[in-house]
């Protein structure tokens, strides 16, 4: 083994070792690295009950109810398997709309609904002109009918 081979081996071990160590650490902290919980995880009781957390999902079409006298509003979030009702009073991001993915930060009530103090809009990875989107629209929106099981 020449010194060059030894250096090569040392560096390979260093990089692979770092990779393995990091992979194990990330696996151990997997739950903490999730930015939000889905309605299914909340239904399964995985979300914390004593502290704030984030919930993410699609706003069900036709589920948004607004109080005309105040900023109070509520809507239903779905991940196509389970649903959670979210209530919120505040300013919504421009991208908030029915059928849109959103992330809400807040707390679960004992009755199983979610009280948010912050609502962020998520946008997807698709970019297209409005005309193309219009021709695709009908089959791509989540509705209450998509909530089968």
């Amino acid at each position, binding site marked *: 083994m020449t010194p060059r081979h030894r250096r090569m081996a040392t560096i390979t071990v*260093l990089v692979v070792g770092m990779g393995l160590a990091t992979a194990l650490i990330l696996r151990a902290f997997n739950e903490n*690295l999730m*930015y*939000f919980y889905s309605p299914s995880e909340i239904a399964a009781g995985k979300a914390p009950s004593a502290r704030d957390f984030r919930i993410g999902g699609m706003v069900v079409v036709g589920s948004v109810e607004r109080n005309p006298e105040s900023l109070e509003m509520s809507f239903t979030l779905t991940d196509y398997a389970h649903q959670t009702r979210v209530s919120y009073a505040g300013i919504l991001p421009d*991208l*908030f709309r029915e059928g849109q993915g959103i992330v809400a930060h807040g707390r679960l009530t004992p009755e199983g609904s979610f009280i948010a103090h912050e609502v*962020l809009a998520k*946008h997807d990875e698709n*970019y297209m*002109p409005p005309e193309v989107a219009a021709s695709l629209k009908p089959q791509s929106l989540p509705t209450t009918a998509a909530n089968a099981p």
Partner: protein
Amino acid sequence: MFASWHKYASLMHFHALSQRVSPWCFGLSAVLFAAGLIGGLGLAPTDYQQGESFRIIYVHVPSAWLSMFAYIVMATAGALSLIWKVKLGEVIARACAPLGASFTALALVTGALWGKPMWGTWWAWDARLTSELLLLFLYLGYIALQAAIDDRRAAARAGAVLALVGVVNIPIIHYSVEWWSTLHQPATITKLGAPSIATSMLIPLLLMAFASQVFFFAVLLVRTRCEILEFERHTQWVKALVGRSSMPTVIA
């Protein structure tokens, strides 16, 4: 074959080669930037959801790609200098770090500017944003390490080890949006299957990405030249070169 490769690894020859190549790189990147900007800001249609705001993609995505690419260049140059003792690797890694840090900062700033109107927040501690911030700290750590060690050879070795240790962060940045739930959306182009972006929007984006790439190489060549002159300041060829251009004596 090996002899000719060895020639370009010598700092003197690389200095001369870089002087010839870098103006062409600057020229090419200027042409590509002009085409990409006209296409991206003028010709591309507005997005169905984000309207005109989506156009920040033409700065954000190329700088984010470059932030990772520059790190791979820096780590590869570091490995070359550690394993094969290639001096050129030392100077390239050193020249690369501030450039990579700048692209990372640009990606983070344009991301924040994009996040506020679309998501409703400048910053979120999700896996993608946090790992990109970590990349900035890796670059800054490398730069600080270079400044802290006076012996350039020792600084290059320590920096190369730091750069190689940090390589693990690159796949984490790329796959963060798949492995964990994040506010940042998944990949549009660098994924299996067709890119989910209209062709009229994609072409300017690829032009901007290519322009940034060529611009990166152009600046890297110039920065490497500066590093070479500093590194070899006691050699005859640098003294001759500096004397010829009738510059005042370089600081010893």
